[in-house]
C-alpha cells in the first residue's frame, strides 16, 4: 500500500515517479509521525488518484490538518530534499514567468473551487444522518 500511495502522491505533486529511496523514506516518516491512514477521503484518493489535486485543494480550505494533507505534506518534504527532484523546487529564471505565474495562480484557484465542491459533497454524503 505504501509504495502505491507514495507513487500516487509523488505523481500528483511533481508528475514524476519517486525512487525506491523516497518510497522507503515515506513509509518511515508515516510510521514515525504516526499519521493515520484509515479515513474515507484517503481511501478514495488512493483508489482514484485523479481526485488527489481536488481533494488536497478542497481540504486546504475546509480542513487543512486532514491526515491526507499530512501525508501529501510528508511526501512533498521528502521530494524536496532529494537531489533527483531539486530542479522542481529551485528557482530557475524564465522569460515567460508572467504567463507561467498567471496560469499557476488561475489553475490553483480553479482547482481549489472544484476541490471545495467535491470535498463538501463527499462530506455531506458521509455525514451521520440525524
Amino acid at each position: 500500500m505504501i509504495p502505491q500511495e507514495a507513487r500516487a502522491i509523488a505523481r500528483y505533486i511533481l508528475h514524476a515517479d519517486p525512487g525506491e529511496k523516497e518510497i522507503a523514506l515515506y513509509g518511515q516518516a508515516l510510521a514515525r509521525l504516526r499519521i493515520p491512514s484509515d479515513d474515507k477521503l484517503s481511501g478514495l484518493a488512493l483508489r482514484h488518484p485523479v481526485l488527489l489535486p481536488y481533494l488536497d485543494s478542497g481540504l486546504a480550505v475546509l480542513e487543512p490538518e486532514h491526515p491526507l494533507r499530512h501525508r501529501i505534506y510528508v511526501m512533498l518534504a521528502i521530494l524536496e530534499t532529494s537531489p533527483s527532484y531539486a530542479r522542481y523546487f529551485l528557482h530557475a529564471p524564465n522569460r515567460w514567468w508572467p504567463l507561467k505565474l498567471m496560469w499557476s495562480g488561475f489553475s490553483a484557484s480553479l482547482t481549489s473551487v472544484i476541490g471545495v465542491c467535491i470535498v463538501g459533497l463527499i462530506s455531506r454524503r458521509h455525514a451521520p444522518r440525524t
Partner: protein
Amino acid sequence: MPQEHDFIVVGSGPSGAMAAQTLVEAGADTAMLDVGFQDLSYQDNIPDRDFISLRKEDSEQHEYFLGKQFEGISLGKIKTGPQLTPPRRFVVEGVEKWTPTVSSSFEPLQSLAYGGLGGAWGLACFTFSSIELKEAGLDETEMRAAYQTVTDRIGISGARDDGTPYCMRELNNIQPPTRLENSMELICSRYSKHAGSLHRKGFFVGRTALALLTEDLGARKATQYYDMDFWTNAGKSAYRPDVTIDVLKQNPYFIYYDKCLVIRFSETTNGIRVVVRRVDTDQEEIYVCKKLILAAGTLGTARVVIRSFDYTVDKLPILCNNYCYFPCLQPGMLGKKADDRKVSYGQLALFYDKNGSGIDVATVMLYTYRSLLSFRLAKELPFGFADNARLLSQIYPSLVIAGLHHPERSSQNKYIQLIRDDSSPTGDKLLAEYEQSVGEMSDDHARERQIKKALRKLGCFPLKRVHPGYGASIHYGGTMPFSTSNDPMTVSPSGRLGGTNNVFVADGSGFRYLPAKGPTLTLMANAHLVAVHALNGISL
C-alpha cells in the same frame, strides 16, 4: 564532599558565557553549572558546502534537512521556534521534563543546552538608546563601555547608516558588513527613493549589525555565504556562546560541570550552597561558592530563586515582546534569480520611531526565505500542496519575511508563578499567563498598520499576518525588576539579588522594559558588568 569554588555561574547561554569570561580573565576561580545538552547527531554530518550545491548533489541531505527521526517535518499550526531545524533541536532538549511550563496563553522557548538559547540566536545586535537603557534600569555610562567589551570579544559586522542610532551607536571595531543580497539591495534602492517621506513618518532602514564575522577573528573564520546558517556554523563564523565556553575550558581558572540542573541555593556566613540535580543520574549534588551568578535565563533564574525563597513568592511579572511576521511579495524581484551565495540572517532592519523620541521604537527585521525549504512555506499558502510548491518555485526569490517586534512594558496580566507539582522531577512547574490590555493591542495594531504602509513603500507587499502566539519573540525579562530597595525578587543596579549578599543575576530578569529589538547584545553587556561588580570585594 561538595565542590568549592570562588564563583559559580549558572547557565552557559549568552549571559553566562560573558559573565564567566569576565571572571576568568580577572583570574577568578570559576565554575559553570549547566545542563548542557549538545547536538550529537548532526554537527559532523553536514558537509561544508553551500545550500544550492547540497540540494543538487547530496543524496543524504534529508537526514539533516528533515531530521533522522523526521523531527523537521512539523504537522499542525506554526509554533514558537520554526528556526529550530533538526540540527538545532538540542537547544530545547529536555525542557519539557526538567522545566515544565503550563499556560493557555504563553508559550515560551526555554533551553538547557550548551550555549542556551544562543544556539538559535538570529545574531542581530542592537544597543539600547539612552532612554531605553534608563527605562530598562541600566546605567548608560557603564553599558556603553560594556557594549564595546562584548563587541571586541564576539566580533560584529555592520555598516553606518540610517539604522545606526538604533543598533550600533558608538560601537567601534566593527567588521565590514555582509555582502547585501539582491532583494535587499532593491529594498535599499526603494528606501533611497522614498527616504524623505519615510523619515517624516518616523521610518528608518539600516543594515543589521550581526554577530557574524566577515573577517577572520582568531581561530574563527569569516562567513562563506553558504546560506546554511540555520543548519550549521561552518568555521564558527556566527557567534554562539559555546564558542566562548570552549575557549574557557582551556583556561585553568575555569571548570565546566555539565548535566547539572541547579535547583536552589542557600546563603550562609560560610558561603553559598548550590543544590544540583543531575539529569543523567537524577542524583543530588552540592556545590559551594563565595559568590553565585545566576544566568539561567529569565524563566530559569526565576525557578531557582523562587525555590530558594521556599516558594514564598506569589506571582512575578514577565516581559515579552509581542511578535508577529508578514510574509511579503516583492514584485521587483519577480522573474529575477536570487543570489546563490548569501547569508541566511536578516540583513536589513526597518525602525519605526513614531515620535522621534528613541523610545517605543518598533523593529522589523527583513529576511529572504530559501534555506528553511519551501515545503514549510507550502503549508501556509491556501491551495493544494502541488500548486503551492509550483507557485513557490516561481516566486520565492521575491518573498520577504518582515518580522516585527513591539516594545514591552510590565502589566498585571502578564506573570509567572512557580507552583508545586509532585509529578515533576523538580517538584514544581511554572505557570505562565500573558494577556495584553485593550490599549496595548490597539497600540500594536496601529503600529502594524503604519508598518505595512512603510513596507509597501519599500516594495514589499504583506500577504498575511502570522502571529505565532505570545512567547514567540523569545525575548524575556522583568521578573525581578531593578531596584535599590533590596527587597526579595528584585535586582540591584549592580546585579545583586535583593535579600542576599553574594548572589547576582546576570540575565534579563532585572530589565524593567524591553525595547522592540533583540536584547542579546545588551544581555551580554549587562552580564559582563554584573561579573565586574561581583568581583568587587573578593581577593584572587
